[in-house]
């Protein structure tokens, strides 16, 4: 791996960790556990669009591992891993569609993240409470996914404009 890529990965992993921490400070719906803004997924969305699939998966694993180590526990890591694998796979797949915007990619990522977490919940806890839980998580996952997609679109537009100016 090139030094430039390694440095970029380290910076993105650090950014994902800071955003994960910020996420834990903003409870959206306190009565429904697990509903978060998912700010750190912005970093993964960036990786999906501007890095290779291998680097994106590696970044997701770094984010899950380090944030669980610092702010969570082993069970939390399992939820995050399942959600991360499904969401990153879905986003990488959708990203292959030509001329796709970050908004539908991010929305699909948010939904698949919830599907992955709910499946782990069915195995670790039980099917019945997860059924009560899942609709709230799906609504929040879709909404935050769209919101992050809109933010990412604005950020990517700025990045691309800068790159074009630099190249000119």
């Amino acid at each position: 791996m090139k030094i430039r890529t390694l440095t970029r990965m380290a910076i993105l992993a650090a950014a994902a960790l800071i955003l994960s921490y910020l996420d834990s400070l903003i409870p959206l719906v306190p009565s429904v556990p697990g509903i978060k803004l998912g700010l750190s997924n912005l970093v993964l969305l960036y990786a999906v669009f501007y890095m290779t699939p291998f680097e994106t998966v590696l970044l997701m694993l770094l984010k899950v591992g380090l944030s669980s180590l610092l702010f969570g526990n082993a069970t939390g890591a399992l939820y995050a891993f399942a959600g991360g694998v499904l969401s990153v796979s879905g986003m990488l797949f959708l990203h292959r569609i030509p001329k796709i915007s970050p908004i539908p990619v991010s929305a699909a990522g948010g939904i698949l993240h919830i599907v992955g977490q709910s499946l782990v919940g069915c195995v670790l806890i039980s099917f019945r409470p997860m059924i009560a839980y899942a609709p709230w998580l799906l609504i929040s996952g879709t909404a935050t996914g769209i919101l992050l997609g809109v933010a990412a679109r604005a950020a990517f537009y700025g990045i691309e404009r800068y790159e074009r100016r630099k190249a000119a």
Partner: protein
Amino acid sequence: MTETTGTCRKRNWLLLGAAILFAALLAVLCLLLRPKPGAPDRFVIRYGSGEALEIPARETRTVVIRDGKIVDEATGEGDENVIRIENGTAWMETANCPHHECMKQGVLSADTVGSRPLGTWIVCAPHRVYVEYAGDGQ
């Protein structure tokens, strides 16, 4: 670098619509499959690797679960949850899980079941402990 500017507007709307529709269908399916309590008369606490403790709703009792086992006293060590059952209501009194989200889920009782997002459940996902307000006919 992938260019995200100049994207196909119609394709993006279609994909976004498909994603929202998928989520909505899943949510409706979950709501349809959601168990409806018959006449709740007991709290069922599930913990550890599938063990369950049934307590009549009218009983008054504090249950301490540490590392998947019921213990006598709360010490705050290990993975600990303290569940209070009192006069037809149950709530998570204390828990040392990362974000204490189970403690924020409020009181579970016959009056609150309809208005709680999680219905008949209090869930502590990190410690794999949950309380169900159960009755016959579920």
